[in-house]
């Protein structure tokens, strides 16, 4: 499965960005192989519907889950409808967040 982690930088040691739509980078990590790619989030300075557009991107990438604690209501709706699970997480690096996912230590918001 592909796991999406919004982050403040391009490295796996970058801190997780807890703002979903306006994060700096989006990491896409294959959970079986731990291989990943990242993209800069060029939408983040947009004025309208940024969350919707970033969620669309995540759905298009075929991600099965996102680790992010602050997802807006519109983006949340898109993710849910697109079959993307959302886990809370933030105060750690991308690498640590992936490890927490593997250890089943992330919770899903209500």
């Amino acid at each position, binding site marked *: 499965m592909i796991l999406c982690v919004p982050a403040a930088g391009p490295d796996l040691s970058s801190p997780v960005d807890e703002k979903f739509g306006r994060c700096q980078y989006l990491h896409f990590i294959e959970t079986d192989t731990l291989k990943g790619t990242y993209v800069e989030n060029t939408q983040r300075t947009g004025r*309208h519907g*940024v969350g*919707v557009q970033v969620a*669309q991107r995540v759905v298009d990438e075929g991600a099965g889950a996102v680790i992010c604690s602050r997802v807006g209501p*519109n983006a949340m709706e*898109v993710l849910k*409808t697109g079959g993307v699970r959302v886990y809370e997480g933030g105060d750690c690096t991308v690498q640590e967040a992936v490890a927490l996912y593997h250890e089943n230590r992330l919770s899903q918001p209500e």
Partner: protein
Amino acid sequence: MILSVASGKGGTGKTTLATSLAFAMDNVQLLDCDVEEPNAHLFIQPEFSGSADATLPVPEVDNAQCDQCGICQNICEFNALAVIPSRNGKEGGVMVFDRLCHGCGACSVLCPRDAITEKHRKIGSVQWGTAARNGFPRVEFVHGTLDIGQALAPPVIRQVKQHLNPEKLVIIDAPPGTSCPVVEALTGSDYTILVTEPTPFGLHDLALSVELLEHMAIPYGVVINRTENGNSSVEEYCQENGIEVLMRIPYSRQIAEAYSNGMPFLSTWRESKTFIRQMIEQIMYSGGW
């Protein structure tokens, strides 16, 4: 002739001037385009004879027709649409976020499968009627009200302006500022009166309005309100930039009291009717009307 009354800063006296203007002239139609907080009716006191919903066309997608091509999502300037692809046996479709939609209609025009139709979402209302206040000439009146919680004033303003009667002297009471609602209200005006006050704020926001009107290529002049309650910077600014000061409204307790009683200053400031008529004559003369 379409004459708009605008101001960069709020609370400088747009409505005060617009309503006195309406009652000082003959054969007037007043359009209150400050749909976020319309208040000209408090002074005009019209009897409303009709009303209509102000609506915005928003897309409605027939997901049975949709093949999730994504054209609608790509064209949407405001990201009001998300396209969920069919995956793992689950049917996909288009999600519409009504509140982000500005009603441009591009998605429904471009949909290659004609899966998008438009429905009308209510965002406000428009009311119209006539004022016949004692001692004042009759005034045709229209105003719009944006519903609470809605963000898009321009479509409501557009729908107010659909009632514009070219047979009349049309006075448009514009919203404050220099953003989209103001542009919408001023578009099509033959002349704009900028109301300001002689304070640093008044001057700062007057300069913004001047920039806007230069850009829109609408002729304009300035009315200074509460003249004795400030400094000379606005007068100096107008002189330096060759902007005509059309009228000066004194800083007066009587005018403020009239205002608080819903009376146009015309009723307490005797000379004002003459001043207003001279001002309009001057505007019409300079514009060749």
